[in-house]
């Protein structure tokens, strides 16, 4: 199968702190790829490097066969690289519709002049409706974004990302702060995206159950370094991973 995303020897330092050291990683279409590691391992930084919010120091990032290492974040997004955040980021002062329309713009790409004269596009509604039903919640399109609960916003962020018809979504701790029911819905949503739509997903999650449950492949980071990579079974049996998580001393 064609590789969706490939990182090769990616490095990043913030002052004296190594955030990424010679990181290699590969993601395939339809795959949910877990990215785990202890706190401060550089997971979120890795997503920032991939989505282009922070520039890499060295190494190459290839997406859809193109070298995107030097590409700006918005251009990566336009190529089909979606992203959600640990705390959802929406247009706080706009209603839900505006937020979704922004995603729709990324999908439809009509020119400014056309959007100036044409009435509001509504053709995203069936798609939105379908995804919302999978996530099993409902809302009014004209409501303020702040009327949604935290969990709903986290789900809406994933839905918003899916509306743009991306090839790859980077999902940062979708279940953090969610209750069990909501967590299941997020999982359903992610599985739908990966398995039925063939979208590649890079998933950061603290909940090991969730990672083990839905990921095909897992990359384990510690202090910016890849210490293990492979299927859930391989990773969970890996000495280095256990060591990193349990914090055993090298000499013990």
């Amino acid at each position, binding site marked *: 199968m064609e590789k969706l995303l490939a990182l090769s020897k990616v490095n990043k330092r913030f002052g004296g702190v190594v955030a990424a050291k010679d990181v290699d990683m590969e993601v395939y279409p339809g795959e949910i790829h877990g990215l785990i590691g202890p706190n401060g391992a550089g997971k979120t930084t890795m997503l920032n490097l991939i989505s*282009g919010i922070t520039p890499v120091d060295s190494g190459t990032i290839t997406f859809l066969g193109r070298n995107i290492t030097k590409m*700006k974040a918005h251009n990566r*997004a336009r190529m089909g690289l*979606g992203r959600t955040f640990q705390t959802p980021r929406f247009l706080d002062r706009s209603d839900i519709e505006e937020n979704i329309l922004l995603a729709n*713009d*990324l999908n439809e790409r009509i020119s400014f002049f056309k*959007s100036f004269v044409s009435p509001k596009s509504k053709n995203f509604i069936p798609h939105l409706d379908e995804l*919302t039903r999978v996530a099993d919640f409902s*809302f009014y399109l004209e409501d303020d974004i702040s009327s949604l609960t935290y969990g709903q916003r986290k789900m809406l962020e994933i839905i918003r990302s899916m509306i743009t018809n991306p090839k790859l979504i980077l999902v940062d701790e979708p279940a953090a702060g969610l209750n069990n029911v909501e967590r299941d819905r997020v999982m359903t949503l992610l599985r739908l995206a990966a398995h039925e739509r063939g979208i590649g997903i890079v998933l950061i999650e603290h909940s090991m159950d969730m990672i083990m449950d839905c990921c095909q492949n897992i990359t384990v980071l510690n202090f910016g370094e890849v210490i293990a990579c492979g299927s859930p079974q391989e990773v969970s049996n890996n000495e280095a991973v256990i060591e990193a998580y349990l914090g055993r001393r090298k000499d013990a």
Partner: protein
Amino acid sequence: MKRRIIKILVVVAILALAAVLVPTISSHYVITVVNGALVFYVGCLGICVMLGYGGMVSFATITFMGLGAYMSANLSLKAGMPFLVCVLGSMIFAGLCALIIGAILLRLSGTFFTFSTVALVLIAHDLFTNLRSLTGGPDGMGGIPPFNIGSFVADTAADNFYFLFVAGLLAALFVHRLKYTNLGRRLAAVRDNEIAAATMGVDVYRTKVVAFIIAGVLSGLSGSLMVHNYHFVGSSSFVFDQSTTMVIMAMLGGVSHPGGVFLGTMIITMLPEWLKPLQEYIRLFYGLGVMLLMVFMPTGLWGLGEQLSARFKERFHLTRKTLIGSDDASSEEMI
């Protein structure tokens, strides 16, 4: 759809009424005041785009008004161009300057950008005052011909009013519609969350520059209207204080809506005229008012109006909303 048509008709009727009534029932003095306010309204619409839509505090509006004003004055006095060419010329000129300046200044973020626009205003004022061959220096440029189209030449304040009214209306419609375009949404995204915007495919820098250019073009238009309205342009009109007044005008009425900006412009222009008996205290009240306003209605009078009407409609269930994610989704219904 019917509601929409009725709504548009009502707005058109009110505007038409205003267009007919203002010049006929009010005195020459009132029309002059309204004309002055309309000139600044067009400039304030630029602030609406920059601050209201894009969340960027820029004090440069007055400078681009100056650029437009001097361009228009030069075109009409030295090249003898008719009004429409002058207006177009100054809009293009101000837009080009905005492109160059914006491309440089918008590399800065937040407070740095705001302050660099302040610096720009101060530099530009020095240039306006001292480039005597281009701006007439401190003497300014006088004898600028009035508004004209073809053989029609605006002679009275009422004639000027029609020109300004049409220009203001067109600019307001453009700015109003802009909010609902993809550019408008991109601006909102940049305003609310630059990083989220970038991951949604929004070119933050470019969007900001485009907004700056639009604001520049509107200011250029405003400056051009200014010279043809007053037949004179002098550098003392383009000072930092005037710039802050314009930002306050926009904020007072409601910076994210052209209607709100209109309210603000009218009130700030008319308040001093209106409260003449309180001369000593006008500016004190004005300052206090601004401070109170920011605390109690940060979205300006328009925002307050919208909040009130939203509450009203919720009370009486008049809102039409689109439900997403339930069985009868995507059907419009009354709740």
